[in-house]
């Protein structure tokens, strides 16, 4: 029997308030294996840790149980302390008597009794804990950034600046993302392209950065420090190295009626195209679904006019395989589809547009060359109504496409839009219907107030109930004004809907490939909402930008930098210590039946024939399983699939869990 020390934490009054910590320490001190038991106001403090360290030495402890807050909080702290005193860090167990005891039970007697039981279970488990030594695995000093919007760009630049090679995978023909489509940025109203394009160029020129545009991640295997990624480079039918971006092919291409993605379908482009003037790489693409040569085998005009000889109709998609130490998800967002909101007449009227479409209308390289015009008749609108929270802050069932969260950026960009309208076209009447105006952020509320006070934008608290297209081409907006308690009918020329934003559709399959977790809205989950906001719980996967949650540009850039610094911290290491709580197979009992390999999500189990001839009870070569400890993540699926019980999990072994069960049910 091991010599166990028990340390009960008061956590101030957090634990001591509903658990009689003295009694817990006293009672657990009487357990057969326990040679030392004490309590202390803050075990996690330096003084508390010293008590543990001293006791390990003085009482020659072989196992430590700390009754304190959740192991998710301070297990690592206590492991370090135990380790400093010369004991294997895995000979420590934490009994969670705060989150799962003192905080939920009001009754002192019941709380104390439960704390004792939880302590006993930890003592029973630690008796069976094996001293584990974390293995090491090397770190590939290269990072992958998935998504080439402002988040991906900033992350890549920061990693590259630190001297590590980094690859950007972007599914569109150019990097830049949503920010390329935006006109001005709040709260300073500087031009989006002017601040973005230099960064795009920097990416292209930085020797440490490789851009895989028009490419998608196909498969990810491996683990932190050693990911192996297959990148599918879609065929663009243009040789990237030869194309000079002169744009002649895009002018001569006879197919002119392809909806232009850059303008959200508000204008058309050719089948041969460069997404926009500042595209990086500045290389043409042939739309394989619309190009006459690629669909019907005829035409070939672009090839004739291309002086660089860059057009290659035979180009095939290729797979690039590369190793990375770290992966950053920066997959961004899209506005939701709002066709389901019949009351706003989005599908019925061209003059009801989304905010992103409105950006295109305002921007100089947009479908109206930056002139504020109605898309139906090209007339300048005199009255514009902005509707906030379209699809945001909705509970699930109402429209089916609504989101329960606040999209965060809409209040600010709507204030920006309203302001720009009034500035450029002072004779325009601008109404903003809002539920709440949310403007936390530096200079944000000031910005919004300026829209109201200086620019005279009519902010009305109340939601629009109905938008009805009128025979004269105007739009009748019916809404409630909750402050004056009246129903308003505004005859508008244009209605702009602040559609909710949602994670890009590519995020979910990517998360599956990365084995990174997501919330129900398909935003990536962070390892800790407060303390590890840019890391995924899956080691080696980091989060940048809106794929983690709604953010505006300054926040995205800040988070992108934070993700980069985490990546740099990882790549700076030569070796990583692995999680030692992994599966292992007892070869003497293994049947080699493959049940375990069938359920292993990581492909960590392999089989080999081994000679067991020296055993007396049979001279046999048997097929037995072995676990790659660097690949295994320690889920334990194999341990239950194994009928013979040969497979067990270190740190959560069958006997350990059984011992806990026994202690709890005693």
């Amino acid at each position: 029997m091991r010599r166990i020390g028990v340390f009960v934490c008061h956590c101030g009054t957090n634990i001591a308030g509903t658990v009689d910590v003295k009694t817990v320490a006293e009672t657990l001190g009487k357990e057969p294996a326990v040679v030392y038991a004490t309590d202390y106001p803050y075990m996690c403090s330096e003084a508390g840790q010293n008590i543990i360290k001293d006791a390990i030495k003085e009482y020659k402890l072989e196992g430590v149980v700390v009754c304190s807050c959740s192991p998710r909080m301070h297990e690592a702290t206590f492991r370090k302390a135990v380790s400093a005193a010369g004991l294997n860090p895995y000979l420590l167990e934490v009994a969670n008597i705060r989150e799962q005891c003192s905080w939920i039970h009001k009754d002192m007697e019941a709380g104390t009794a439960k704390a004792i039981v939880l302590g006993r279970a930890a003592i029973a488990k630690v008796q069976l804990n094996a001293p584990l030594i974390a293995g090491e695995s090397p770190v590939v000093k290269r990072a992958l950034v998935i998504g080439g919007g402002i988040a991906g760009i900033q992350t890549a630049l920061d990693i590259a600046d630190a001297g590590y090679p980094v690859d950007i995978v972007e599914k569109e023909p150019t990097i830049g993302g949503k920010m390329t489509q935006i006109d001005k940025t709040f709260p300073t109203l500087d031009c989006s392209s002017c601040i973005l394009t230099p960064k795009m160029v920097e990416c292209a020129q930085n020797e440490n950065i490789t851009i895989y545009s028009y490419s998608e991640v196909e498969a990810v295997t491996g683990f932190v420090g050693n990911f192996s990624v297959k990148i599918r480079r879609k065929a663009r039918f243009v040789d990237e190295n030869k194309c000079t971006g002169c744009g002649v092919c895009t002018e001569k291409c006879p197919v002119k009626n392809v909806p232009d993605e850059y303008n959200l379908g508000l204008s058309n482009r050719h089948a041969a195209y460069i997404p926009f003037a500042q595209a990086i790489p500045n290389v043409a693409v042939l739309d394989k679904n619309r190009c006459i040569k690629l669909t019907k085998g005829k035409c070939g005009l672009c090839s004739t006019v291309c002086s660089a000889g860059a057009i290659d109709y035979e180009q095939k998609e290729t797979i690039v395989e590369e190793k990375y130490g770290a992966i950053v998800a920066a997959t961004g967002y899209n506005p939701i589809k709002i066709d389901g909101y019949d009351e706003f007449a989005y599908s019925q009227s061209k003059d009801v547009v989304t905010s992103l479409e409105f950006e295109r209308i305002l921007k100089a390289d947009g479908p109206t060359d930056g002139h504020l015009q109605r898309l139906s008749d090209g007339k300048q609108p005199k009255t514009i109504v902005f509707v906030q929270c379209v699809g945001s802050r909705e509970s699930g069932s109402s429209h089916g496409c609504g989101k329960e969260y606040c999209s965060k950026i809409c209040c600010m960009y709507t204030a920006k839009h309203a302001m720009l309208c009034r500035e450029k076209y002072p004779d325009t009447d601008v109404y903003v219907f809002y539920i709440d105006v949310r403007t936390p952020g530096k200079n944000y509320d000031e910005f919004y107030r300026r829209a109201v006070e200086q620019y005279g934008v009519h902010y009305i608290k109340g939601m629009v109930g109905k938008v009805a297209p009128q025979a004269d081409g105007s739009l009748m907006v019916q809404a409630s004004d909750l402050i004056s308690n009246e129903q308003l009918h505004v005859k508008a020329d244009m209605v702009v809907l602040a559609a909710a934003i949602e994670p890009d559709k590519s995020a979910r399959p990517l998360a599956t490939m990365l084995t990174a977790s997501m919330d129900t809205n398909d935003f990536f989950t962070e390892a800790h909402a407060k303390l590890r906001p840019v890391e995924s719980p899956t080691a080696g996967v980091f989060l940048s930008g809106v794929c983690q949650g709604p953010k505006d540009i300054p926040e995205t850039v800040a988070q992108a930098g934070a993700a980069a610094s985490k990546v740099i911290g990882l790549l700076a290491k030569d070796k990583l210590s692995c999680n030692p709580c992994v599966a292992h197979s007892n070869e003497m009992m293994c049947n080699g039946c493959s049940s375990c390999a069938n359920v292993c999500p990581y492909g960590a189990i392999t089989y080999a024939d081994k000679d067991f001839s020296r055993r007396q009870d049979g001279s046999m070569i048997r097929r037995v399983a072995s676990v790659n400890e660097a690949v295994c993540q320690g889920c334990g699926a194999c341990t239950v699939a194994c009928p013979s019980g040969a497979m067990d999990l270190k740190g959560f072994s069958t006997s350990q869990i059984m011992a806990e069960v026994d202690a709890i049910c005693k």
Partner: protein
Amino acid sequence: MQEVMKKRASELLADGTVVRVLGWKNGEFAYDPTPAVFQTVESLEAFVYNDFCASNLSKYLIKFLRQEGKTLVFLKPCDSYSFNQLLTEHRVIRENVYIIGVPCDGKVAEDKLREKGAEGILGIETEGDQIKVKTLYGDLDLNKKECLGERCLSCKSHQVVVFDEMLGENGEENPDCGRFDMVEKLEAMTPEQRFEFWRGELSKCIRCNACRNICPACSCEKCVFDNPASGISQKAAADSFEENMFHIIRAFHVAGRCTDCGECSRVCPQHILLHLLNRKFIKEMNECYGEYQAGAEAGSRAPLVNFTMDDCEPSIIYTKEAGK
């Protein structure tokens, strides 16, 4: 049939195709032939095949997995499913085995004969539907159907699913065998009645381990119940719970792997209806995850090492029961 089999075995042994033959020879009693290995043509004299040869030979092949030379084995339909399952689990190597399939229309159970008054059984002869049981007290002519073992009355398949050659004509699957009838009957009972039923059954268990030892799916190098590290090892059941535990865990370990060969119930000296546990799992998995027959196809993936994203929730078991 016995002579044809013997002849083929002699030929294959003589021409070196195989180095040993796995078959049956008479056991202590004539009604209890025992699996046997024959390594010479001469020894084949003792080879027996008749309607008492019920035991499933597949499991014995594990022993010869890595031994020199090929093994000839005679597989009945039931046994061939077990063979495929062992193949799936890499417990046998197909190339090391020469399989002769033998058709089967059911094996005779000794206790059924006793019910018909047969004592001191010396042998059996089959002629179509009729059997002639030789006893110390003279011959007894009986209808074979009436003397079949329980499992043969609800035989799922008369088809040998894997073989190198077939002696006689191969049979067909028998989907209307009604093998789940008894399970359904139990399901229709109240929980209290079921509890009573199983209490009656399982309390008979003497933990002789016959079910485990005969079961082709229970072929672990070391059974968890014999392994002190498993936390549930037991030599004998200390209390009634451990009886349950043994049988639940055993059924669980073979769930998705059990081919429903019925050997467990056949060999149980206490006549516990063990196959009803396995069949419950088979039926439930069929209902929840689609039809699956272990051993029908080598290399297939059993339901418990598989999943779909939209599997039913465990609570379905409770709503199902409430619906009844």
